[in-house]
């Protein structure tokens, strides 16, 4: 009886992973295709990578996206960490329910609604106070911070929820002020979660198309906006090359982070064992 299930589950898993990875692999394989027809194999070539190197529009867009993503990630990490700290540590303060709602709603809000509402806000603000004048880097960054800080909040809040409060209480009992407790005790412990939040916020901003399309202005096309305008007309081999580069960067980053975290985990376990052995 058991054998049938043990056959079914691995088959479905293999199917699921193939489903997740075949499209990505096909992008990579066809990026080395000589033929302009993308899906008809015309021999191995790296010419689309060279074409990419000379494409000023894509390079400019990538640089703009990078600057926005880095600014956004830093801002979202600061705001998200503060919100996560408040939600995880301050108990039941006034307005807690509203803050919880405000931090989780952007996670599931359809992007078209967030984009539209932010654009209407920027237009109304420009009419009323003359700021922000026009749309570009500033408006895109503000929009991205608003939706990506929610992700940082969730990451930081769930890390703090599993963290033993007694360490912080001990420091408090010994007379440390709350700010000192945060910088000396809490921050170093939750630093990996904060870094993960930063990376998540960076990626979300780097990939965002819909919200950016609403709040950007002429001359501020980010990479996804340029890719979308090209892809709408059909497949294009230099986009495959670009996709390959991006996928490789992300994969390297994720695998490195994964290995690093696994090593940290092992070291922590070993330290705990050593400490136990020393005490016995």
């Amino acid at each position: 009886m058991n054998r049938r299930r043990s056959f079914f589950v691995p088959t479905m898993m293999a199917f699921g992973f193939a489903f997740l990875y075949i499209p990505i692999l096909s992008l990579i394989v066809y990026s080395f295709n000589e033929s302009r027809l993308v899906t008809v194999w015309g021999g191995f070539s790296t010419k689309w990578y060279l074409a990419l190197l000379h494409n000023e529009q894509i390079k400019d867009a990538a640089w703009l996206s990078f600057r926005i993503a880095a600014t956004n990630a830093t801002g979202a990490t600061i705001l998200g960490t503060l919100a996560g700290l408040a939600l995880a540590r301050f108990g039941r303060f006034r307005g807690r329910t509203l803050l919880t709602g405000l931090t989780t709603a952007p996670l599931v809000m359809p992007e078209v609604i967030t984009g539209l509402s932010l654009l209407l806000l920027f237009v109304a603000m420009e009419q009323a106070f003359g700021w922000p004048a026009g749309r570009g880097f500033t408006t895109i960054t503000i929009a991205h911070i608003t939706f990506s800080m929610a992700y940082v909040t969730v990451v930081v809040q769930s890390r703090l929820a599993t963290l033993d409060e007694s360490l912080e209480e001990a420091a408090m009992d010994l007379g440390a002020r709350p700010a000192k407790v945060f910088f000396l005790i809490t921050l170093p412990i939750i630093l990996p979660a904060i870094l993960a939040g930063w990376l998540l916020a960076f990626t979300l901003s780097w990939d965002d198309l819909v919200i950016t399309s609403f709040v950007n202005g002429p001359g501020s096309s980010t990479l996804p906006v340029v890719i979308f305008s090209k892809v709408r007309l059909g497949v294009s081999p230099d986009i495959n090359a670009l996709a390959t580069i991006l996928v490789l960067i992300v994969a390297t980053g994720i695998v490195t982070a994964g290995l690093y975290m696994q090593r940290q985990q092992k070291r922590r376990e070993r330290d705990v064992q050593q400490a136990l052995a020393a005490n016995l």
Partner: protein
Amino acid sequence: MNRNRPANGQSSPFILAELMAWIRALGPYRWASVRLRGWGMTGRAAVTGVPYLWLLLFFLVPFLIVLKISISDIRLGMPPYEPLLTWLSAQVLGIKVNFANYAFLWEDALYRNAYLNSLLTAGVSTVLCLLIGYPMAYGIARSRPSWRNLLLLLVMLPFWTSFLLRVYAWIGILKNNGLINNLLLSMGVIDEPIVMLQTDFAVYLGIVYSYLPFMVLPLYTAVEKLDLSLLEAAADLGCRPVRAFFRITVPLTMTGIVAGCMLVFIPAVGEFVIPALLGGPDSLMIGRVLWEEFFNNRAWPVASAVAIAMLLLLVLPIIILQRVQGREMGAHR
């Protein structure tokens, strides 16, 4: 080396603490902190207040503006809507509310169909996602612990790579001279290409593919927590595995199932990129309608009404999701 590393890792917070002490010793800091405290501004209020203000200004206020514009008249010019409040004379403030935009949505079959089609597409995709995602989550949770993290990483990896590029990859696979058709033609299974791109099938596929990680992760968390001895007890008492699965595993992982389904369903209803790239011209989804009203027709009030109506559809799923996640958070404590 091991002895040095932790000390290095901790030096930066110590520097921060030093810096804090220096800043605190400065006159202006003392003056400011006394003043702020006098106004009821403590450190705690600042920690809560800064993100609070940000979200109120850039998340809540924009919604009120959308609501306002959805009941405004359309006009030509920039911005393309009439103000709601106007001074009729020095003392009299007039309000002009216009529900015509909503009536327009209700009467026009195009919008009704777009809403129904969005709900249908999101629903079908969610069910398909669950059918593929559940066995995957189950398999990962039941695999050897050393494999689990690697498999989870493999589920998450596509999520970190560009959504747009992953949807784009399907164009190359599905189109008439794409990967699948070329393969089938060369094997002689079919004589002429099957039309797959620009169909509803392609949209379902795109949504399932893009949102599968959102389904697998909550399911994995739920299955991993399941107590295996319950299944053993059921087997000892003569319960068949399939029956035990539906009577024990499914009810006990229901929070994961509901959370996963909502996490796929809610964004799928408002999806724009997937129907725009993979769907045909007649596969109208509400996100695409909003986009076209806004960018092509420049009808801001209609687009706002479309957004508000979409939000009304999503209120119930969002509340369910919040409930489930609230319970999940409560269980952690």
